[in-house]
């Protein structure tokens, strides 16, 4: 009963609170001179949102940076000692290598597939159906996708019936032995990346497809009449005109590759040399319980992403300005 009461309070109370806030702030604004109102009003309206961002985003970020300068229990100030430590950990080296694999292969393959699918879908009558099917995996969470693919990649010893889909097909159709997809480094990383690709290709495809449809058909027709083969039209006309969109999608994918966590956590927990930086951070915080090191890893990750984020934002703003 308590829970029902709490739920009722939340469902009714939160909107009431918001409405009350708006009514109260408008009344307060009414008491200000007319001139000042237009300047103050925006701040009043986004006040709650800014408060949330500060409390749940900015404060924790600053706190993390602060904590990274302390020891495991956050009691003794150790300066940059944590950073020195993590630079030497072999785990960190492996994690960085894996993140590089993610950035290169995940971003590259998703972009390539997204581009190819966008172009091909544009030319068939069942375009709507094809795009929906490819986009469908985006609808499920990474955790769910990871669980699905964990079963697909499952491995049993050669003499036993294979329960994993891939191995079943492999042993059923060819004489090759079943493979331990998730276990043998470094190719197990590619298996994990494949799951990410499966989920995210739809995203890249949809965005590139929209940009593709913005290119006037007559440009392509002019190129064809001028004598270009399809591949030349693709390389010299389509790709350059899609450049800005590809840049935005690409940088988004790179940011995502650097942050990847769910897939690795669910499928291998970071074992078998599939660690990525986000996993390391999680592990240091909750298993090893070393606040300082976990925080320093988080800061390193932030520093790695910031340049990519800046490129992404500038590209995005440039495109908005062009429009």
């Amino acid at each position, binding site marked *: 009963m308590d829970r029902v009461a709490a739920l009722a309070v939340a469902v009714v109370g939160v909107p009431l609170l918001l409405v009350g806030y708006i009514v109260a702030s408008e009344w307060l604004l009414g008491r200000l001179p007319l001139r000042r109102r237009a300047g103050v009003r925006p701040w009043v309206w986004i006040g709650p949102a800014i408060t949330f961002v500060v409390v749940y985003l900015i404060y924790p970020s600053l706190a993390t940076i602060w904590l990274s300068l302390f020891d495991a229990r956050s009691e003794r100030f150790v300066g940059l000692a944590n950073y020195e430590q993590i630079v030497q950990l072999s785990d960190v080296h492996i994690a960085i290598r894996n993140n590089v694999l993610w950035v290169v292969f995940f971003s590259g393959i998703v972009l390539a597939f997204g581009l190819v699918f966008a172009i091909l879908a544009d030319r068939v009558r069942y375009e709507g159906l094809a795009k929906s099917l490819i986009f469908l995996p985006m609808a499920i969470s990474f955790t769910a996708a990871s669980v699905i693919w964990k079963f697909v990649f499952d491995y049993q010893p050669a003499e036993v019936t294979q329960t994993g889909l891939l191995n079943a097909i492999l042993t059923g159709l060819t004489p090759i032995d079943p493979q331990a997809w998730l276990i043998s480094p470094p190719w197990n990383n590619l298996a994990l990346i494949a799951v990410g690709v499966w989920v995210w290709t739809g995203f890249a495809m949809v965005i590139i497809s929209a940009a593709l449809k913005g290119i006037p058909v007559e440009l392509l027709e002019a190129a*064809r009449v001028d004598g270009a083969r399809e591949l030349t039209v693709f390389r010299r006309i389509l790709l350059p005109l899609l450049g800005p969109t590809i840049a935005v999608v690409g940088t988004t994918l790179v940011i995502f590759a650097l942050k990847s966590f769910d897939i690795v956590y669910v499928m291998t927990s970071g074992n078998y040399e599939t660690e990525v930086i986000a996993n390391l951070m999680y592990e240091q915080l909750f298993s090893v319980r070393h606040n300082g090191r976990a925080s320093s890893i988080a800061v390193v990750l932030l520093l790695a992403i910031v340049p990519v984020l800046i490129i992404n934002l500038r590209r995005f703003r440039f495109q908005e300005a062009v429009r």
Partner: protein
Amino acid sequence: MARVEYDDVWKRFPGSDRVAVHALTLDVADGELLVLLGPSGCGKTTALRMLAGLEHPDGGDIRIDGRSVLRLEPKDRDVALVFQSYALYPHLSVRNNIGYPLRVRGLTLAQQAERIGRAAALLRIEHLLARRPGQLSGGEQQRVALARAIVREPRVFCMDEPLSNLDAKLRTHTRTELKALQKDLGTTTIFVTHDQAEAMTLADRIAVLDQGRLQQLGTPDDVYRHPANLFVAQFIGSPPMNILAAHRHDGELVVEEAWRIPAPAVRDHHGGTALTVGLRPEAITIEQDGGGPGEVLVSEPLGSEVIVNVKVGSALVKVRTAPDVRPGPGTRVRLAAQPGEVRLFDPSSGTALD
């Protein structure tokens, strides 16, 4: 040497009952400028695109120099297409836009530079070569599009309303230049437009189309003075030809029950005595003598001439007169028709009877 022939070409758009091009048969002589003229939706652009290879006919054949091109890709037909919207590559400079067809054909840089230079000089755009299309005015973009077509030295030029996006003054100026250019190059050209004045000034011959069907193929003179049917009569000429109901009586034509003119000799037709008469505004003269079948509604002075709107019976007749003939509204006038310029049409089918 490039003759173009359309042989019984059909095109129906999928998912629609409408026939875009209906049994089109026409030929274009080597070096000729043929204009495909007609209102929107008459099939002229479709016919042009079928020649370029961007659409496929559902029936019939299209030949260049006697050889069918239907099995050839657009890039192999040696046809250059100038689009209404110019279709310039926005990410390439003007020089690279013009040189693009040469680059994909593998010409050496020296050859490319030479041809680009020549085309640019011909169209007077040498000073624009380093710019991007986005930095050019409409007229400049249009010249670049033309240069890109010329530089290939193709067998046939196809032009899809290239002047429609220009302002009126630039359009008339460019029209003249285009005609001179085509005569200079001597390349067979097919030009699509809906503007009858443009067609009249540019064409060696005009093909008038309506709803996918060829209405008449002839020189501008033919089409103007001897239109094959009512559609052509009313489409060509500004102000359009006066179309009036008449019936034959005692060797005369009684127009709109009010105006008698001598009847020209014409072969018998099954419609009986009822006829449709066509008279161009300049083929009618006004005699102001205080009486007559016509009543002036308004005179429109245009500087070099006057268009007088005269009510005859229930019809409105436009008459072109000298600048000093300017009867006021309400004046009763007598009209006379130049004998050789009276056109007769069958009232039900609209076809010319002479």
